[in-house]
């Protein structure tokens, strides 16, 4: 990156370190931190949306819809999450390719499952076989986002369902007494008030989501864990920057990164919860009211 880094073997001490930390591969690692942040930024709202849908379905007066909603929230409880992560990615991948196969190659006669193999026609491959590596990366990332959203959506649905139940019944009855329809009650009274009840659960979920991001590595995305293993492994003198096994230091750095992330979120969420409690008929809201009087 810098001009002085042209000949790494002549460098020493601090200069060597600067050059070492700005190699192309290290820049790739810094980008992968961005991948993690993008994953968080995309997954959190999507999962919230899934959760909202799940909670609404679980409250629905129509029995089949209610069963789907309840089943969705109950699904993730007894089973280790990591099983879901491994399962969903393959299922999504195969079902997408299967659908495309049905559309694009209707005259294909060979069975898709040939014994131990899953084989679709070349036109149905996602991304197509000759696509550049970047597309494979992006496709893997999108699958990961969908998987994360489905699993975390189920947890969010649980939290939001509880929060909707926790809104005082009197509030809803008052709204009904004013002649609001079901839909109006839901939109104007229930949803604005439920957030204060949902916040503890949702912030817990956010922390868990942060701590789940290293699982990207298992899903085959080149994330920070991948780079830490790749770059930290011992490099012989065949490399420009030979060094012994430094994976310990790379993982220590990751540990610190996650600790900073969780601590920072804790502080922000604490402020948000104080903000939402203002003027609410809860213990925290009451304490705030007393403090100002």
């Amino acid at each position, binding site marked *: 990156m810098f001009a002085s880094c042209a000949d790494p073997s002549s460098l020493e001490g601090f200069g060597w370190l600067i050059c070492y930390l700005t190699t192309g591969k290290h820049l790739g690692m810094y980008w992968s931190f961005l991948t993690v942040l993008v994953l968080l930024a995309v997954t959190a709202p999507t999962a919230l949306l899934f959760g909202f849908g799940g909670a609404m379905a679980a409250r629905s007066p129509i029995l089949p819809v209610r069963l789907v909603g309840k089943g969705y929230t109950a699904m993730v409880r007894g089973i*280790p999450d*990591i*099983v879901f992560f491994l399962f969903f990615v393959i*299922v999504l991948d195969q079902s997408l390719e299967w659908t495309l196969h049905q559309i694009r190659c209707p005259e294909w006669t060979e069975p898709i499952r040939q014994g131990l193999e899953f084989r679709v026609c070349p036109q149905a491959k996602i991304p197509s076989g000759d696509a550049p590596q970047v597309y494979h990366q992006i496709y893997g990332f999108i699958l990961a986002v969908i998987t994360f959203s489905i699993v975390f959506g189920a947890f969010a649905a649980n939290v939001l369902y509880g929060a909707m139940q926790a809104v005082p019944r009197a509030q809803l009855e008052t709204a009904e007494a004013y002649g609001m329809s079901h839909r109006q009650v839901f939109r104007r009274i229930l949803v604005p008030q439920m957030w204060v009840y949902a916040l503890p659960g949702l912030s*817990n979920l956010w922390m868990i989501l942060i701590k789940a991001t290293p699982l990207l*590595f298992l899903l085959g995305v080149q994330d920070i864990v991948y780079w830490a293993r790749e770059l930290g492994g011992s490099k012989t003198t065949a490399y420009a920057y030979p060094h012994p096994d430094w994976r*310990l230091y790379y993982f220590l750095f990751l*540990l610190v990164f996650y600790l900073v992330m969780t601590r920072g979120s804790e502080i922000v969420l604490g402020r948000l919860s104080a903000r939402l409690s203002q003027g609410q008929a809860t213990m925290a809201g009451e304490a705030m009211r007393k403090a100002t009087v």
Partner: protein
Amino acid sequence: MSCWQTIGDYAFRSIGIGERLLPRTDFTLCHQFTLIGSGLIWNLYFGVLALAVGFFLANAIAMAKAARNPWLRKPAEWFIFVFRGSPLFIQFFLAYEAFVLLPKAGFDVFGMTIHTSWMAKAWAGALFVLFLNTAAYSAEIFYGALRSIPKGDLEAADAYGLTGWNRFRRILWPTMLRLAWPAYTNEAIFLFHATTLVYFSGFPAFQQRGDSLYYAQYFADKTFNPFIPYPIVAVYFVCLTLLLIWVFGRVNRYLNRHLPANVRSRIRLRPQLIR
């Protein structure tokens, strides 16, 4: 080959007893159930031992965090923060790399050699990480329970002239345990779920002796069909979860036996995903 024969060959494959070669073709449902069930032995091993030993450390740390002396309180707070604030996945990686760096020949302490190579093996190293991790999570639960002991209980203890160790053993500790138990049940369940991470994180499986998820992934990779092995793992874990809820429910009943039926705390399953 009958199913009984498969069970005989592979039921203890994960701990090195029985047939050494894993099946390579003709995977039957029986193979999958047997081998994944065999892997569950490791999940049980990690979960049970980490919980049993972690319980004591968790109590000690909870007490330290509640202590007034900052020399006790600060280290406890940091311990809990580090283990609860970072992913278990990273902790496994970090621990493995650290254990690998230990000198191969062991340390010489006063002429005695302490061997360290076994710490890099999953059965010891991963257990150690899980033990510290569950200790941190449980300590936070116990600390919370300790803080919510009713004031009246303490005043009653004072009125009876109970002090020091007696006050702790007869009043504080049982009440804390009773209040913490429902949350601790959840912690236990999710610790068992977390044991599936062991063979995915640094610690290599020795001679293909892995846990249930390790074998499930083996089958999924070989057959390109995730619809059978992963649901089998799921079934096993649902059964395990039900068993845990039953055992912990019995203990909960014992802890609450002096209370009238309507004020007893019930165990509710709360979602807590990855650590």
